[in-house]
């Protein structure tokens, strides 16, 4: 039977707090810059130009966004594919993060596209040679899969509770029936989407790494390597559980819930091997291509690379090998935050720091507008997360047992 009692319920809290109001201000600030971008063009609010075509809207909003939403597919693989039911409590929060994260990846792409109104073109204009095409199609399908995976949470919220206002109340019964049919259909077919979600994730997480390979010598040799897709996939897998831990600890603090340390410690224990594997490939690649010589130079690239590896991989790896760290919420939080910062920095390094075009006469640094939009997107994401957690059954509260944990399994095994 279940190791843990899982009972996801809407968390009863007020939506507005002083922190939430700060987030709202940040979100509004981003909307102002976005309005300028859509009325006067990308060049008006960004520092992008013909030398630096891609900035933090791609490097952070898209590339890092996709990586940091990896918690969705790693927990799905652990909880549903490998049937480790003891982790069921973290699947829904991770799914919500992935759903919101990928939604904002799509938003990030939209605002960065010069002709954003043609965003649907890749659906029927195919270029199988293009890594970007692969990423685009995979993200589109995966986003749909994430919405489908989230639907049961919506049906669960409203089944038996449909209460439409006024004249629409006549439709209450019908709406309820539709929800029940939908719920039953989803329960039977969900395993298809769960597996598809994992496959799609491995595909586009790695293809994101292929993206910059075509830039060839424009990219600093410390990062430019043919195994970039593998490194991107391994780092995405390694950052999945740290993201879950990071969010869970922040959410339980912000919503004043008891933290689920018994699950998080176990999750934390799995990070070190994954991170170690990533580090092994990263160092192995450096040794084989003899790129360590670039570390003897003292410049932005070598400093950023050292910070990325030391603080983003080596230190958290050492920390997570210690049982003491795994048991302490604050130390575990620190280690998880370091891994996340390391992957974030890695994506920034790959897409921005490493990129030097042949005729560059200055270095790119993001404008106030670019930074505002990126921060604003994160703020809106956090606000939506709070909204969903308060209004939908996402977070598990220990105590009652709902008996729904074994819902999504391959058919044929009873």
């Amino acid at each position, binding site marked *: *039977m279940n190791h843990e009692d899982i009972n996801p319920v809407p968390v009863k809290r007020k939506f507005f707090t002083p922190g939430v109001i700060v987030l709202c201000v940040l979100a509004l600030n981003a909307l102002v810059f976005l309005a300028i971008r*859509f009325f*006067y*063009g*990308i060049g*008006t609010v960004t520092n992008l*130009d*013909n030398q630096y*075509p*891609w900035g933090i809207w791609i490097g952070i909003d898209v590339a890092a966004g996709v990586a940091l939403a990896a918690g969705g597919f790693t927990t799905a*693989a652990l909880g*549903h*594919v*490998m*049937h480790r*039911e003891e982790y069921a409590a973290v699947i829904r929060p991770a799914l919500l993060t992935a759903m919101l994260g990928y939604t904002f990846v799509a938003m990030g792409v939209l605002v*960065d*596209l*010069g*002709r*954003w109104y*043609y965003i649907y*073109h*890749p659906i*029927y*204009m*195919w*270029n*199988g*040679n*293009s*890594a*970007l*095409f*692969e990423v685009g199609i995979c993200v589109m399908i995966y986003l749909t899969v994430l919405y489908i995976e989230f639907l049961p949470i919506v049906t669960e919220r409203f089944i038996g509770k449909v209460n439409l206002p006024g004249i629409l109340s006549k439709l209450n019964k019908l709406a309820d029936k539709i929800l029940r049919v939908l719920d039953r259909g989803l329960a039977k077919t969900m395993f298809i989407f*769960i*597996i598809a979600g*994992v*496959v799609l994730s*491995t*595909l586009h997480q*790695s293809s994101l790494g*292929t*993206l910059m*390979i*075509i*830039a*060839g*010598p*424009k990219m600093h040799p410390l990062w430019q390597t*043919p195994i970039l*897709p593998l490194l991107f996939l391994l780092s995405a897998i390694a950052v999945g559980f740290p993201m879950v831990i990071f969010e869970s600890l922040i959410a339980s603090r912000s919503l004043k819930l008891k933290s689920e340390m018994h699950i998080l410690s176990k999750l934390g224990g799995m990070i070190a091997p994954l991170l170690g594997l990533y580090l092994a490939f990263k160092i192995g690649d450096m040794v084989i291509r003899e790129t360590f010589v670039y570390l003897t130079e003292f410049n932005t690239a070598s400093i950023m690379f050292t910070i990325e590896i030391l603080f983003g991989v080596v230190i958290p790896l050492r920390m997570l090998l210690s049982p003491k760290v795994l048991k302490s919420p604050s130390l575990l939080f620190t280690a998880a935050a370091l891994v996340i910062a390391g992957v974030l920095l890695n994506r920034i390094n790959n897409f921005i720091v490493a990129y030097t*075009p*042949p*005729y560059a006469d200055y270095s790119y640094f993001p404008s106030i507008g670019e930074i505002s939009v990126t921060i604003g997107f994160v703020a809106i994401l956090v606000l939506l997360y709070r909204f969903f957690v308060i209004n939908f059954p996402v977070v598990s509260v220990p105590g009652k047992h709902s008996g729904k944990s*074994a819902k999504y*399994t*391959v058919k*044929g*095994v009873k």
Partner: protein
Amino acid sequence: MSGKSRRDFLKSSALIGAGITGLSSNSAKAAPENILSPDRMGVLVDTTVCIGCRNCEWACKEAHDIPAGDLESYENREIMKNDRRPDHTALTVINEYSPGKHSNLPVNVKVQCMHCDHPACVSACIVGAFSKQDNGSVIWDTDMCIGCRYCMVACPFQIPTFEYHKALQPDITKCDFCFERTKEGKLPACVDICPVEALTYGPRTELVLIARERIRRNPERYIGHIFGEYEVGGTSWMYLASKDYNELGFPQLGNDPAPGVSESIQHGIFAYFVPPASLYALLGGMMWLSKRRKELEQEEKI
């Protein structure tokens, strides 16, 4: 993977795409062409002949409906003090460098799209808006482009540019080898106007022979290197010079086609969708087995 099977793969994926999206194969545009016709044309730029009159800049603008101004105003050489790059206001520019070994006059270098034989932009473009045409031109289709600027990230010569201050329909701009003019049998505008015949237009294979012959006849005038003959797999535009290309603003590039590595990775991961499908089957199997194991454990307990 060979070029032919890659094209076949693309054709079949385009068909699948058309089927999935429920569109007729007419509206689903095929994946980008990269026809390497043996008769493809090129231009040989002899930088030892060019006098830097910048008439080509003027003619190029006239041919592409870009405000060009008076031809006389191009005599001003002040503008050449700093290196310039092509953009949406000029698809080609002339830069000036210190004299080479053949004379005491400055060396002038015309800059425009090189029209690679294996173009990175064609490989990279998410929607396949770029194509390498039969006649050697690498051209861009405004009806497809979504403005993602991946072509700019990919291009080893930093050539495609973007209209950053246009809110609607910003274009990717670059030299199109006067595709519309050559279709009608005319010369590219720059070649047509050049008063000193620094630009030679002709089949690429013949241009290579001409270039080698010039080097052979005047070894004291030229360095023995035709830029573009082999760089990034060969380019339609090629250069002759009297000094090292690195001193003339050319990027240092290898001879492998720019999209080679990324394309082989891409086709390795997606070889006829076998790897993704296998992963799907593997995960499905794991899900089934782990579920079954759980069930057996439970039965034992009962």
